């Protein structure tokens, strides 16, 4: 503990460095008057996806409706400084700092944001007149068990998460029509994720559209999985697959069908969203288009 006696007059500044992890959950709970069980997932960059997956699991077990999602910001001196010291962000101060799957990528761009969902039993949603946007059909989680600061290079644990999600959804790999990649734009993440995709999808990966929205909105850390699921919802409802901002020269080590900077119009039935957290916590979630 700090030697408080050596700083007898010290008080913390009004600027709050404290970071209660359930701030957002508490605010949502109070704003909506929710009184049910509360779960606060802090599994780093996989937290948002895992929160949605857990909500789907709860509904599958009998819960009527769950409010879920993610909110995060590391856009502050401590967050930016700390990430910089780990060497994760791009060192370039440029709008195209984050270039997922590009051969010249050199790191992520720290972002901030939030995305929330109502996950609800389909019959319940329809009974109250809600228009379902998508169905959560599959989810899977694994852990790299590799290193705290680097993904497993062969993507094997990430592949297992994807495979588990496919199994839960009852889908063959060929059924997936779009992958929203974790795609951080760091030198290590992107090729490892492409290895995972190649492992699961085999030859299908050559014609499987993949993109990362992190080049456009940055890495939202704990909220990334949630907002990227929102991107998948929009891909289904708008029949428009988001592009990969700032991609100019695809890295040959990322041998998948990466969508370039412009969105691609396509009608797909099933989407896959990957969230691979710092420290190796992997989550994959599959959505299905609503008829």
């Amino acid at each position, binding site marked *: *503990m700090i030697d408080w006696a050596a700083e007898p007059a010290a008080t913390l500044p009004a600027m709050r460095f404290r970071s209660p992890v359930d701030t957002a959950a508490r605010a949502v709970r109070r704003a909506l008057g929710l009184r*049910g069980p509360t779960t606060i997932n802090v599994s780093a960059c996989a937290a948002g996806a895992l929160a949605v997956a857990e909500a789907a699991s*709860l509904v599958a077990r009998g819960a009527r409706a769950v409010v879920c999602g993610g909110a995060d910001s590391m856009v502050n001196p401590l967050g930016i400084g700390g990430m910089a010291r780990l060497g994760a962000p791009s060192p370039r101060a440029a709008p195209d700092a984050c270039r997922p799957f590009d051969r010249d990528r050199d790191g992520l761009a720290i972002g901030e944001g939030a995305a929330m969902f109502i996950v609800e039993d389909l019959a319940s949603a329809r009974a109250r007149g809600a228009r379902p946007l998508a169905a959560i059909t599959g989810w*899977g989680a694994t*852990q790299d068990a590799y290193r705290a600061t680097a993904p497993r290079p062969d993507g094997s644990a990430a592949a*297992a998460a994807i495979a588990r999600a496919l199994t839960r959804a009852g889908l063959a790999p060929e059924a997936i029509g779009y992958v929203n990649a974790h795609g951080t734009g760091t030198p290590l993440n992107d090729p490892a994720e492409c290895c995972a995709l190649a492992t699961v999808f085999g030859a299908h990966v050559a014609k499987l559209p993949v993109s990362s929205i992190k080049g456009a909105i940055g890495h939202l850390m704990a909220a990334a999985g949630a907002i990227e699921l929102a991107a998948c919802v929009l891909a289904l409802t708008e029949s428009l697959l988001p592009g990969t901002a700032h991609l100019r020269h695809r890295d040959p080590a990322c041998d998948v069908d990466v969508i370039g900077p412009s969105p691609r119009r396509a009608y797909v039935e099933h989407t896959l969203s990957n969230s691979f957290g710092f420290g190796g916590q992997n989550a994959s979630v599959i959505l299905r288009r609503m008829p």
Partner: protein
Amino acid sequence: MTAMIAPVAVIAWRWRTALGADIEAAVTRMLAGESGAIANPEPAYRVRAIAPIAGAPPRTRHDRFVRRLGAFAIDAATQVAAGLAPDLRLGLYSAVGGLRAHWDDMLAAFVRQRDDGIDAWALGLREIHPFWMLRHLSNNVHALLAADLGARGDGATYGGASAGAQAIAAAAWALHAGAIDTAIVVAHDSLLEPETLVELGERDQGQLPGEAAAALVLVRPDDPRARDRLASVAAFAGAGAPTGDAMRGAIDAFSAMGPIDLVDGDHALPAATARTAIAAAFGEIGAVTPLVQTIALAGILKRTRARVALGLAAGEPDLITAIRIEVPA
């Protein structure tokens, strides 16, 4: 409510508490009315007593990346997981307090900061250790443990005062769903950091801030290993005032599973709530509470004719936990 509750078998456990690491000895001391409380040696705080874990955790290769409580958690989990096969059927569920800042190793970089945050880097943040983010990352202990133990299956890290119950509940459902065959649940938390102590001192409600780390190994009730189980546990993590419907709902759900012989509350509950001596013995231990209750209540039950105990706890803000523990006949 029932969507959250799934009993599982506990086949191994370890803890690091203010009453020591020896579970039998600690339960004996607790039942004798002893407490891990000591007089707060720091007069700058108005908190009069604290319940720290005595001593330091054993040194490991992770020392540069984890802080003291995380090291205790790694120590407990490593011991509890001895002999478990490292593979995709082994899950890991972690709980960290996180409601408190736990900035105690960084306050020196904070005290010169301006209220508006301008020049924060120059006014101290640049002096922070390069590994501070790893040390403070919510899932750092989880990541290191997963690598050490080869836990590649389902898993998640939970935060907040109810995180221990969240982790047990999530592990239980992953087991029942067949996603994994074995789950390690590990939790660590401490209220012994400056801001929390100042806050508790200002409230002056007689709470005993403490710290602890604990780990459980869980399997499905029909797993052959469950025949030698230490106990069965089911957990609920809810929200709401501890006297409100949320707590009552959990109690009702557990009561529906059969008679309850013993109830443990904690200091955050109203005085009228039935309680045993767990919080008095181990202190307020936040996210670790459900795990320590599991171990301690099972230890009490085994010394009596009673079979079933209910452990209740309330943490700020408005987070409640309830666990049901049953020991074999």
